[in-house]
């Protein structure tokens, strides 16, 4: 038996090690002609410089990118200038770094490439490779945000051309960064918009329901008012894009208590919550719109009593949350329109929840709606238990 153990365990470990090695080194094999390899090296430098530039222009990103940009251009030294300050100097001749901003001034004012004459740079050291420079301003959306200064012994027409092309490429990356930033801002704005949007109907209905209890059952009225206050506090909080599932469920519970004050015995709610998934981080206020949708559009028009079932389950590396009602159901076409953002004013934010989930967890994590006229509605979302950068606050 022993040799069999040996062979098998050896095979296991060797296979695991081989898999690890394969992962680590794949894609680094050499190929093709020298021209192919040169093209590959160029593209590789560019792809290395791209991620930091996509963060926008700051000392950290400039320092990382400058290294790869210098390799791309093959010049002795290179400087990245931000808005009037030197962000990064890459290469020898560091003593010239102090004047780099001065060298770039003319080009940044003119808004076009500028060759700095040798007299302005010369430091008297014959071995210094930094003798002349070409400066290309970085113009994003019509604004000069910085400059790329390429230093060499001698400026050739080829180098001027190459510097211009590289600067163009850098500009396109910076524009993408700007685009990313505005997309994030847009999502944040939408989130703020959704927060402010505790539905006016709900506020009105809750307050009238509470008012009806003030005389008959003051204790109940006080309880409900406190619930209302808590719910408002949670919904209007200003920090954090994520919350734990436990907090979201508490908020949904408050919401349902207020609705039950109005619906009375007509509204029945079942909760099936696996305690393991309570700490999962979910986008802030992602559950309440689903429950509100079930109450208002599912059970509201239904004459008899209705039931809402909220489930949260452990599903491997994901957490699966579903909100189900046995109400009147929705028209699938209308749901599609709502999710596409064409729902109009009556839309209760399903589209917004969908979009935020997709923005954070990718396109596979949107809402899944199962519904038909008269058949109730079930909305399911899947949230990974861990995603780097996602933390409840």
């Amino acid at each position, binding site marked *: 038996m022993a040799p069999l153990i040996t062979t098998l365990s050896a095979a*296991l470990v060797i296979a695991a090690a081989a898999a690890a090695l394969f992962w680590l080194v794949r894609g680094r094999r050499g190929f093709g002609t020298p021209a192919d390899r040169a093209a590959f090296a160029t593209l590789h430098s560019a792809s290395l410089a791209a991620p930091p530039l996509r963060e926008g222009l700051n000392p950290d990103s400039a320092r990382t990118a400058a290294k790869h940009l210098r390799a791309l251009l093959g010049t002795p030294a290179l400087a990245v200038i931000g808005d009037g300050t030197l962000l990064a100097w890459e290469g020898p001749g560091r003593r010239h770094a102090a004047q780099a901003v001065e060298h770039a001034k003319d080009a940044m004012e003119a808004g076009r490439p500028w060759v700095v004459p040798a007299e302005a740079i010369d430091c008297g050291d014959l071995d210094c490779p930094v003798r002349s420079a070409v400066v290309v301003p970085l113009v994003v959306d019509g604004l000069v945000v910085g400059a790329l200064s390429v230093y060499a012994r001698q400026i050739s027409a080829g180098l001027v051309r190459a510097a211009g092309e590289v600067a163009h490429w850098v500009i396109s990356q910076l524009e993408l960064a700007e685009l990313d930033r505005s997309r994030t801002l847009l999502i944040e704005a939408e989130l703020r918009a959704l927060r402010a949007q505790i539905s006016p109907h709900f506020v009105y209905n809750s307050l009238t329901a509470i008012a009806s209890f003030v005389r008959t059952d003051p204790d109940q009225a006080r309880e409900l008012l406190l619930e209302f206050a808590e719910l408002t506090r949670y919904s209007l909080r200003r920090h954090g894009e994520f919350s734990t599932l436990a907090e979201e469920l508490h908020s949904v519970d408050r919401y349902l208590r207020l609705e039950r004050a109005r619906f009375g015995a007509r509204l029945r709610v079942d909760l099936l919550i696996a305690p393991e998934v309570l700490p999962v981080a979910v986008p802030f206020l992602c559950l309440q719109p689903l429950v509100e949708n079930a109450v208002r559009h599912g059970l509201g028009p239904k004459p008899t009593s209705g039931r809402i079932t909220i489930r949260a389950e*452990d599903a491997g590396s994901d957490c699966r949350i579903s909100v189900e009602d046995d109400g009147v159901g929705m028209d699938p076409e209308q749901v599609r329109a709502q999710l596409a953002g064409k729902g109009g004013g009556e839309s209760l934010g399903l589209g917004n929840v969908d979009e935020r989930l997709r923005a954070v967890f990718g396109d596979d994590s949107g809402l899944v709606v199962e519904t038909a006229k008269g058949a109730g509605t079930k909305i399911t979302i899947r949230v990974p238990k861990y995603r780097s950068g996602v933390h409840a606050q």
Partner: protein
Amino acid sequence: MNQSLGIAALVVVLAATIGVGVYGLRLSRATSDFYVASREVSPLWNASAISGEYLSAASFLGVAGLVMAYGVDMLAYPVGYAAGYLVLLLLVAAPLRRSGAYTLPDFAEERLGSAAVRRVASVLVAVIAWLYLVPQLQGAGLTLQTVTGAPRWAGAVVVAGAVVGVSAAGGMRSVTLVQGLHFWLKLTAIAVPAVFLVLAWRSAGSPALTGDDVPRFPHATVVALDQRTTFDVTAPLTIRATGELDGRSYAATAVPSRRDGSTGVPVRLGRGEHTAAAGARLAFPKGAAVPHRKGLRPATGAAWARPLSGAGGRAHPLYAVYSILLATFLGTMGLPHVLVRFYTNPDGRAARRTTVLVLVLLSVFYLLPPVYGALGRVFAPQLLLTGQTDTAVLVLPQITQAGEAGRLLAALATAGAFAAFVSTASGLTVSVAAVVSQDLLKGSARGFRLASLVAGVPPLVMATTTAGLPVADAIGLAFAVAASSFCPLLVLGIWWRGLTDRGALAGLVAGGGLAAVAVVVTSVRGPGHGWSAALLEEPAAWTVPIAFAVMAIGSLLTRHRISDAAVDRVMVRMHLPEEVTAQAYPPVPQVDVPPQTTGG
């Protein structure tokens, strides 16, 4: 052993686990009860669940078996298994919970922001889990064989099928509940028979456990061998044999012997090595010294009870004990199925409280297996001949209690053993499936099903085709790999700002790789002698320091890769109590004014 009772115990455990696990508890709750329903799992129940998942074949069967064969040195295993949680409590529990990481690769990515470290961590998770799963499945095979006489592979297939099925169905719905119940079942299953065992020992006149004599048969005993066994006879004796012994076949006699009722042929066994084929039945007279399986040296009670005596024939006991302690102390935190359970705690403080309770529960449990190990030498010394000391917990209740009571106790022990295999194996399978589906199959629901097969099938193949080491030893090797890879990653990652991705990568590969190589070489050479064998059989004592050193030096050499802002962010999240972050936004104060009753 009574087959039907044993099989009933097995069926009940599996059905309950799968039923509760897959379908969940269909308990509906009205919204007014919501606070009761949603209150986070209490630390005690969470601690039960962690302990339930943690107590594996090694704890339930292996510890007793090793203590029985090799003496009190082997107490290093239960001590280490329990004390591992002390290290976890002091260094890792709360910061890890606060980091929000769900698996070990998640932690690597969170702390170091490196996809390469994440991948290596994923590979290591799979390797450790496989090493850990093989002995679980082998234990299941051994148990089913002992209880029903089924072939070895049957038990392994049953358990692997169940856990892969549960995992492929999306993991357990009520996993905390199931695992918590499993802990209490296991504690009952080992505690109740232990009480009867001690009573039986008292009523037998409390035979000495630490005397100057080697184990002897307490009464005339027939030993049935179910596999080819080589054993050493230290003093010549006459036995009655049927079946093949030393190459000669003995047929059963027509007339049973007058002395002990055996139908065997009298055979004189001289000193030295003898080999019996599978199916042989050897009848030993009362009081004969028990021949030990080859490789196991008979030890007197006194030597058995003396620490570091090397009883049972283990070389370099001092080194081995410290190496085992190091592996188990530091390896616990690196086990993939342990970390996942901590996520269920609502915050860092609850994680600490849970860990303290885990320590208490495990300490109570680990007091019991050594009782079986000690009394097994008195009541079931034939296990030293067959070499199946791992079955001591299963066979002792039946031997010491006659009649129906003994059968019921044996069924209880069987149920506990299967609870141990199923809970640990399902925890491991789900952990590996989560990691594999996320890192290899891009995390779809179908990918998870496929990943469950990837997680369960290789260890099943290994378990059914190999004979294997003693259960607790095999588990110890998995601990050694975890201690030499994830322990440095967690400890340095949490407590040292200077850890870099390159350093971590080098440390994981060096430590985990060396330990894995030691595991392979040990299995290739089998038990050896001398220092090289000792170093390879218990590698933790040298691989753990190497892993720490490589990780630290590698990080110092690549210091420039640290991004201060990123490290600050992670460190603040891991080390600052949740209340501090929450205080910036205090809840609305609940003014407790009694409602005014207005007249009118």
